[in-house]
């Protein structure tokens, strides 16, 4: 059929610079759209923020007294707890990515996006970015709440900021896991149930809320390699300093050096992205 071989001049060849500019523009458009959604649905934001606040109050006031006895006197329980809470908040916040994408899928929006001449990466990049902004907001809010119940930084602001960046980066890594789950499972309900179940052993079978020294052996073995433990300990070192690193190992376990912790944290972070970014993009293309 010679009639079909018409010229293809509609899109002039783009330089890679131009292409990058358009890709970034698409990311921004989608990020802006998602953030607008959060502003329009403040109830979602309010409740997803109230929940971690309740966790803080529960742990500090209900269990705090008992917990304090298994900690060295130099470390108050709220100071020990908050790094774990930051990681938990970031992870639970990240799960929203899966819900948002499944929702877009069910409503047919993903079909629309895929039929537009936009960057293939934009839907996922925009969603993970906007949810990470929300995580930043939540971590800041948690810090304020924690400050009110006695939380203090003991190793300088610069290191603490590095710790907060670490917590947010954990959230970012988990947004990609959630993105993959969201596009694979396709319905909001399934995604909610599956992702929560999936992250549960990460978040709770860890040293995020209590020292893992009292765990049974098999659980302690898991906790030691569990990224949530590693991330929590990293932030602990960055916010408690000597108080944590010099604490008796019998109480808080053996604390690796900051260098080792940062290395392990980063390895987990990049490992997550290395696995879940390609998986997410793959399902998106095939959806």
């Amino acid at each position, binding site marked *: *059929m010679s009639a079909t*071989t018409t010229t293809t001049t509609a899109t002039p060849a783009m330089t890679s610079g131009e292409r990058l500019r358009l890709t970034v523009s698409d990311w921004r*458009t989608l990020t802006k*759209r998602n953030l607008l959604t959060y502003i*329009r649905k403040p109830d979602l934001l309010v409740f997803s923020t109230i929940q971690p606040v309740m966790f803080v109050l529960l742990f500090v006031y209900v269990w705090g007294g008992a917990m304090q006895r298994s900690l060295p006197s130099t470390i108050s329980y709220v100071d020990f707890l908050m790094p774990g809470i930051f990681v938990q908040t970031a992870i639970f916040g990240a799960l929203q990515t899966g819900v948002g994408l499944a929702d877009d899928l069910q409503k*047919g929006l993903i079909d*629309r996006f895929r*039929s*537009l001449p936009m960057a293939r990466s934009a839907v996922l990049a925009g969603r993970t970015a906007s949810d990470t902004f929300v995580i930043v907001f939540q971590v800041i809010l948690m810090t304020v709440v924690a400050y009110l119940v006695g939380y203090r930084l003991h190793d300088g602001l610069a290191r603490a900021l590095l710790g907060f960046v670490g917590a947010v980066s954990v959230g970012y890594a988990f947004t990609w896991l959630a993105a993959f789950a969201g596009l694979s499972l396709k319905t909001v309900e399934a995604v909610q149930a599956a992702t929560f179940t999936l992250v549960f052993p990460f978040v709770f079978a860890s040293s995020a809320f209590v020292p893992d020294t009292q765990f049974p052996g098999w659980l302690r073995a898991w906790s030691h390699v569990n990224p949530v433990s590693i991330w929590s300990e990293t932030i602990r070192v960055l916010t408690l300093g000597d108080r944590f690193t010099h604490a008796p190992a019998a109480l808080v376990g053996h604390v690796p050096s900051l260098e080792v912790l940062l290395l392990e944290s980063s390895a987990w972070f990049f490992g997550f992205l290395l696995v879940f970014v390609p998986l997410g993009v793959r399902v998106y293309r095939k959806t």
Partner: protein
Amino acid sequence: MDAPAILVEGLKKWYGEVKAVDGVDLQVQPQIVFGLLGPNGAGKTTIVRILTTLLHPDAGRAMVAGYDVVREAEPLRHVIGLAGQSAAVDENLTGLENLEMVGRLYHLPAAEARSRAENVLERFELTDAAHRTAKTYSGGMRRRLDLGASLVGRPRILFLDEPTTGLDPRSRLEMWDIIRELVHDGTTLMLTTQYLEEADRLCDQIAVIDNGHVIAEGTADELKLRIGGEVLAIRVTDRSMVGAAAGAVFGLGPGGGNVDNTTCEITVPVGSDGPGILTEAVRRLDAEKIRLADIGLRRPSLDDVFLVLTGHTADRSVDDGEGDQTSGKRRRGRKDR
């Protein structure tokens, strides 16, 4: 002859055992409305999804606006628009924000995206609702916004997947007006529908799809000639008389008829001599002393088209708006050709 706007050759898409699209050939001339007519599960949506680059075919090829839908998907997306079955708008954004977002994703400058969005809103009488979130829109308004979103990029070829399914009669008429206007502007349109009437009113060319095959193609008039003008529909009061009634009237039309035992309805395509055949039918049934609940002439429905073209009716029991492949699955086993 102009290059065809859409050219499809030997297109196939299988989902395991289910052959959603099983060797479809189509040729669509520019600047017409082309209708894909068929029941749920026929493969219409799958065809549209392949032509709009959402789905890769398993075999065959498809060219849209001169672009190969697989190898040249990226440039193709600049010249097509798609409005799918569900009104794909973000309900937390306002009408204006929805359209602006789509404009930005076509890489229009911000000012241009905004002015096009405003034009579209005005054209579809949504200006008053421009600053309300789409959540507050009625079903018809959402569909108009969705259609508007597919027009922001000024596509040369527009795909509408069941544009009126689920709309109330008034919104449906509005949608028909809008679609007619689009063709005046020089757009080529491919739409899918389950409604013969809709295809009749809107489409210059129709392909009837069943079980992943094109079973008939032509203008609405050509198809209706094959169906035979009007249909005589009879319902008897006594189930035991259905057979006798069918025997009395089947010979009246040019070719047989259909009996539905559950509703006690008998339908006979009657060609152009409806009133004459209706009179004769009443006479014969009266002579047989068959009591009637209802008798009359009506326009052929999709069921009648399918009856004539395939020997089976279009199955409405799977009318759930799900994807074609799932309902296709359920339709198997019911085949009686």
